[in-house]
């Protein structure tokens, strides 16, 4: 037997002769947040002996001390609805804010179902025999306990426990390793009522104790204006809203490229449903799979329905532990869709049922009979497809504040059908349809490059470029040179300006000829005076950030990334590009053109990050 612990950021495994366990459970739930609290209730309802270990002093996590009142794109189905219903009824009768009702009622249900809760307690180490988890070392206010358990369910949000057991994990986006910005929810008073805010405050790597502490302190010290509108400040929520953490290398990993190619799992546990919700304004750095969707086709706020395999909860190579949180096995792009509260509650149900089946059958987690799991999840509605279509327009309001009518999206399959949509200011579905068609539509699209209609011509150039065809390259270059300001209107938020989309595609096509124009965009101090940056609401009226020149930031961030792609493909440009980067970014005065916000703020951090990205390329090129 050995104990696996984390010391100074490293996993250390130490052989031990034996351990005297002072408690024995079927399942130890590490973290009683959004998913952990649900899982504890469901596991106990399934008849298992359950211990919940929670670092704070209440249950609910993001749904309580994280301050999130309303789920993002809730869809019916699953056992969580009845549990939520209890809190809703308590809220109707007794509280101004459902958060307080969830704290009281979820805790009551866990205890009533017979599970045990240890507050202000944390898992310090994992006892293992070979590659199987057999117990945990837990610190409580009363001292240290050694708990024997058949299964550990990691609901920490960040796979702390799975990581502690030595399982492999990933973090952040491929390009620069960063996670999405975090938010900080404040509670405000409006007369007798209570409302909560939810503003992005910055970025944090929550695996780093010093960085996390600095972030927690900054987010409470920085009195952001938007965070205090519409009420009198009452309190900062104890948890900051971290959107992205470790992701396990699971038995099955859900990848966005597979989702777009409709290569879906055959063993789903539920269907995630939301947009690929990026949050950061630096979409240019999100890579090309997401970039084609969000920038190239301007479909960033379209909703996607993603079947998620139950094997995404089971870490590779280790038995006796699984995740029930956003740390499941998905790639970073899919993680942006799968992290919502409704998804996490379904993850909780699936994890609880997987653990239950493993205990009942005495088998490894990866060997549970899927047919039985499927039957359980189907009966509760957890596995029910929420919609007929895998793609939808959904939400409450359009980009201009008008009411949004949700609808299913069906992409086109005939080249001839593309022209009508390309002629509009909502060409996104046609551009994406062209990508799905491969080269089949290219001849038709080439013909449209000569159209008398400006929209058709320009959007046909996009539709060709998204499949790697550079026939429309002159049109793309012209859009960049004129800084084409038109904001397309496909989405309820995060709409792209046409000039930015052209920059993105010229980067993808590695176009040398556009390099000087791209350098001009981020180098010229007068660039910001151009009309393209005066729209005020390029990303949609509902997402205006004060003291942040978002349109300008979109152009220069896309220009930097496009130039890096071009110089990567054409090494002869690297010296010149390196010189341009140094001249533009060295003294950081460019940051002040983008935002006046502090360096640790979301916008201030993104502006400063441009320099890091540029300088990383310089180092990589040996310049």
């Amino acid at each position, binding site marked *: 037997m050995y104990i696996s612990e984390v010391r100074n950021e490293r996993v250390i495994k130490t052989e031990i002769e034996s351990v005297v366990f002072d408690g024995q459970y079927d399942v130890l739930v590490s973290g009683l947040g959004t998913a952990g609290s649900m899982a504890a209730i469901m596991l106990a309802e399934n008849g298992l002996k359950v211990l919940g270990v929670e670092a704070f002093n209440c249950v609910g996590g993001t749904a309580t001390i994280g301050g999130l009142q309303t789920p993002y794109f809730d869809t019916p189905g699953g056992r969580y609805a009845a549990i939520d219903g209890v809190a809703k009824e308590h809220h109707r009768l007794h509280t101004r804010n459902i958060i307080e009702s969830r*704290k009281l009622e979820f805790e*009551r249900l866990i205890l009533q179902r017979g599970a045990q809760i240890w507050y202000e307690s944390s898992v310090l180490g994992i006892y293992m025999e070979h590659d199987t988890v057999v117990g945990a070392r837990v610190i409580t206010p009363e001292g240290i306990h050694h708990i024997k358990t058949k299964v550990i369910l990691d609901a920490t949000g*960040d796979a702390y426990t799975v990581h502690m057991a030595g399982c492999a994990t990933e973090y952040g986006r491929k390009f620069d390793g960063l996670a999405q910005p975090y938010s900080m929810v404040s509670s405000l008073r409006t007369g007798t009522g209570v409302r909560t805010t939810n503003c992005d405050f910055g970025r944090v790597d929550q695996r780093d104790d010093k960085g996390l502490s600095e972030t927690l302190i900054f987010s409470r010290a920085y009195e952001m204006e938007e965070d205090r509108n519409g009420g009198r*400040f009452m309190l900062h929520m104890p948890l900051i809203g971290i959107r992205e953490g470790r992701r396990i290398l699971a038995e099955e990993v859900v990848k966005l490229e597979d989702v777009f190619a409709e290569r879906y799992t055959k063993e789903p546990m539920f269907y995630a449903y939301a947009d690929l919700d990026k949050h950061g304004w630096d979409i240019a750095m999100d890579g090309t799979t997401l970039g084609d969707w969000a920038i190239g086709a301007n479909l960033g706020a379209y909703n996607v329905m993603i079947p998620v395999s139950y094997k995404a909860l089971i870490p590779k190579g280790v038995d006796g532990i699984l995740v029930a949180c956003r740390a499941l096995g998905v790639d970073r792009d899919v993680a942006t869709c799968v992290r919502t509260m409704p998804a996490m509650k379904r993850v909780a149900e699936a994890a609880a049922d997987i653990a239950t089946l493993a205990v009942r059958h005495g088998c490894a987690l990866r060997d549970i009979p899927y047919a039985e799991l499927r039957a359980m999840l189907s009966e509760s509605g957890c596995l029910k497809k929420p919609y007929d279509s895998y793609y939808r327009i959904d939400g409450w309001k359009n980009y201009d504040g008008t009411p949004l009518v949700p609808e299913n999206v069906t992409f086109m399959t005939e080249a001839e059908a593309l022209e009508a949509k390309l002629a509009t200011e909502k060409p996104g579905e046609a551009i994406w349809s062209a990508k799905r068609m491969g080269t089949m539509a290219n001849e038709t699209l080439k013909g449209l490059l000569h159209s008398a209609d400006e929209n058709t011509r320009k959007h046909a150039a996009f539709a060709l470029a998204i499949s790697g065809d550079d026939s429309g390259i002159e049109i793309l270059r012209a859009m960049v040179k004129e800084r084409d300001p038109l904001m397309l209107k496909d989405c309820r938020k995060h709409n792209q300006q046409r000039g930015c989309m052209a920059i993105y595609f010229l980067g993808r096509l590695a176009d040398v000829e556009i390099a000087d124009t791209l350098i001009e965009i981020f180098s010229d101090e007068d660039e910001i005076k151009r009309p393209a940056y005066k729209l005020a609401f390029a990303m949609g009226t509902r997402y205006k950030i004060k003291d942040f020149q978002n349109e300008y930031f979109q152009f220069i961030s896309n220009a930097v990334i496009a130039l890096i792609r071009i110089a990567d493909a054409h090494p002869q440009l690297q010296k010149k590009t390196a010189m341009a980067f140094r001249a533009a970014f060295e003294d950081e005065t460019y940051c002040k053109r983008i935002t006046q916000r502090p360096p640790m703020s979301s916008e201030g951090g993104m502006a400063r990050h441009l320099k890091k990205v540029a300088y990383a390329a310089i180092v990589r090129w040996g310049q």
Partner: protein
Amino acid sequence: MNYDVIVIGATFAAAGLVQAYGDKCLVLERRPQAGYEFLNAAKFGTDYDKALASDEAKALYAKFVEKNAFDGERICLFDCAGPFYSLLEGKNVLLNMEIVSVEKIDGGFEVTAHGVSGYRTFTAKKVIDTTVHNDMVEAKTLNLLVNTDEENAAALPADLKTEKWGYEEDILIKCAVAANDGYIEARRAVAALIDTLPAEYRVAFVADCFDYEVKSGYPVEKDGIVYMPSCAYKNPLLAFDAGVLYAKGGVL
């Protein structure tokens, strides 16, 4: 990592200590918050007429005044969180750190803590614990704010301990629990109390930290560790002041 002083608990007293000690001081806190013993306990303090000795505490008082903490008849500290957290910016403060052990070693102490980066071990000549321990507690309550939109609402049950702190719409109810009770017992007591409220009342906020009444005799030094429970002070400014003064003069 070596420090002159390790302070346990990111309390108001700790903020005073770290202001005066500076870089040679490390604050370790198990919660993701600071100043919770007042701000998150809905414990707004008394004795604000008592003079503050340090310039640092006087400056903090001025910021509280700017935040309208003492505007009107009621004291309300909620909006003082920003200025308080500002005091901790740039200081050695680690939140989310569970204290696993404090061992005496030659020349001081070795403190082992566990957080998001795993175990960390620190050494210091001195340890000052500003948190409260069960054996220090005389009494404790879990506080909640309730209010009503009804002008002619029924009176609250007479046996409830209520006070007028916080926002003017609110009534602060102190739900008493036994000194050894944990948050589960306290929250069950709060839930039972809520059931007794007249139907027109609604709960606006339940504190996430106990409001402690500490036995007399603190601060005190025992086995080389200074115990200075921040919540033992009548208000957060006095706790902060005590921290600054101790760090400057070493006198309890």
